[in-house]
């Protein structure tokens, strides 16, 4: 029998620390999958929102009914002659109604409402001189307001950034709590196997051999627990409602494509964390044994 084989056998396969490591690694990996998904999704959301709102703008024209067509024509002409504007289209009443339907419901008499005229503007990569455009519009079409979506874009991007930060902090906390639990479990395992340590020291075993016997047991349990927790977390994410092609915070939480490989890093990371935490604990405890 080799040293490696006996190393796997010298620590009895019993005790509460085994279950403590298995269950805690499983629970923490489950949470880590969600934190990771939140991080990835919030980053994706920020990108999507920025992409959707960047290089687009809206001109809103509020004017008496008899002037609305004239002002619309003036605004379109101003936009057509402004450098940095790629395209400008008047939004059709049906499109406007569809936008409002989400907020006000489907049966409202949109025709009777004094809705402003909306013009969708697509900017070139360089974009227009926004301040100059605002001044021209104010001078030539007093009812027109140029909205470049900045007031929407900034809080959305900030919110997504904060969500991502929360997710990363959560991941760090999960790692810290896991390490703390592994340290406790390692201490408990070493304390409850004092006879094993005494016998091994008596026969001349080095601290590294004794520590590895415990560390292998604990880190393999952490890997198995984390693998189970990760699998459960991934299944739970798959069970969330489909986003239908759009990423939203609730329905779109999860991964896409190769992103599903990301959670597979959790079990090996849990094992490495358990290895480091239990090794440090084992050496600390062993120093007190002659």
């Amino acid at each position, binding site marked *: 029998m080799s040293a490696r084989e006996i190393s796997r056998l*010298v620590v009895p396969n019993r005790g509460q620390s085994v279950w403590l490591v298995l269950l805690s690694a499983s629970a923490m990996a489950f949470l880590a999958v969600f934190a990771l998904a939140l991080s990835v999704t919030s980053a994706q959301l920020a990108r999507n929102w920025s992409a959707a709102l960047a290089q687009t703008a809206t001109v809103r024209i509020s004017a008496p009914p008899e002037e609305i067509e004239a002002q619309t024509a003036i605004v379109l002409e101003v936009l057509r002659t402004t450098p940095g504007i790629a395209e400008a289209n008047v939004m059709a009443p049906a499109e406007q109604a569809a936008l409002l339907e989400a907020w006000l419901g489907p049966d409202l008499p949109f025709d009777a409402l004094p809705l402003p005229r909306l013009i969708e503007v697509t900017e070139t990569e360089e974009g227009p001189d926004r301040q100059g455009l605002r001044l021209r519009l104010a001078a030539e079409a007093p009812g027109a307001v140029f909205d470049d979506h900045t007031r929407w874009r900034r809080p959305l991007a900030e919110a997504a950034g904060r969500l991502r930060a929360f997710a990363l902090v959560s991941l760090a906390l999960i790692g810290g709590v896991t390490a703390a639990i592994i340290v406790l479990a390692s201490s408990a395992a070493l304390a409850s196997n004092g006879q094993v340590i005494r016998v091994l020291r008596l026969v001349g075993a080095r*601290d590294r051999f004794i520590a590895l016997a415990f560390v292998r047991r604990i880190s393999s349990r952490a890997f198995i627990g984390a693998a189970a927790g990760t699998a459960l977390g991934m299944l739970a994410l798959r069970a969330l409602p489909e986003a239908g092609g759009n990423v939203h915070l609730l329905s779109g939480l999860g991964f896409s494509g190769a992103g599903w490989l990301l959670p597979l890093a959790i079990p090996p990371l849990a094992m490495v964390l358990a290895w480091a935490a239990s090794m440090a604990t084992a050496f600390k405890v062993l120093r007190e044994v002659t």
Partner: protein
Amino acid sequence: MIAFEDVAHDYGGGPLFREVSVRLEPGSFHFLTGPSGAGKSTFLKLCYGELLPSFGIVRLMDRDVRTLSRDALAETRERIGVVHQDCQFLDHLSVEQNVGLPLTATGRPLREADLSDLLGWVGLGEQAEALPPTLSGGERQRAALARAIIAAPNVLLADEPTGNLDWEMSQRLMMLMIELNRMGTAVLIATHDLQLIRFAKAQVNARVMRIAGRRLQIAGADL
């Protein structure tokens, strides 16, 4: 091999013994006697570095035990076999796995044939696969002896090895240790069994040390 130079040991309530100077030479045979609580087990623990002396110097394999690192102490213990009265086995491992521990746990090769021969020598060939809790007292002591000597130590230390055995089994175990001594291993046995000491002295040139009055004395020939 093992040398005490003016050694004293104190657990905090005054010295258990003091001014102890003795050398265990290669191939020697020593008994250590004394009343219960005199410090026989403490003396043995000092001999393999489980305890450090409160005063004086203990040399293991010619090195001051205080200067040994943890790994160096473990390396020294590879050359010192210890038999405890309570044997100290890993109860979830078989007898042969326990006996092989001094080699396997230190990364040295263990030949199955040598292990079988050794178990046969101590009369445990049939119990190789058994778990220690299923063994009788005598079998446990012989298994402990086998474990202590499998790595061919320079010194064998035994703490009351026959304490729980009947006379016949005690004689058998003693003969094993005498045979080992004849092969060159230094032996130190802590015991208060004077009948056993007389039996051994009839077989081998053994010196008897006694801890009494907090001093180590070399006993006379009146045993």
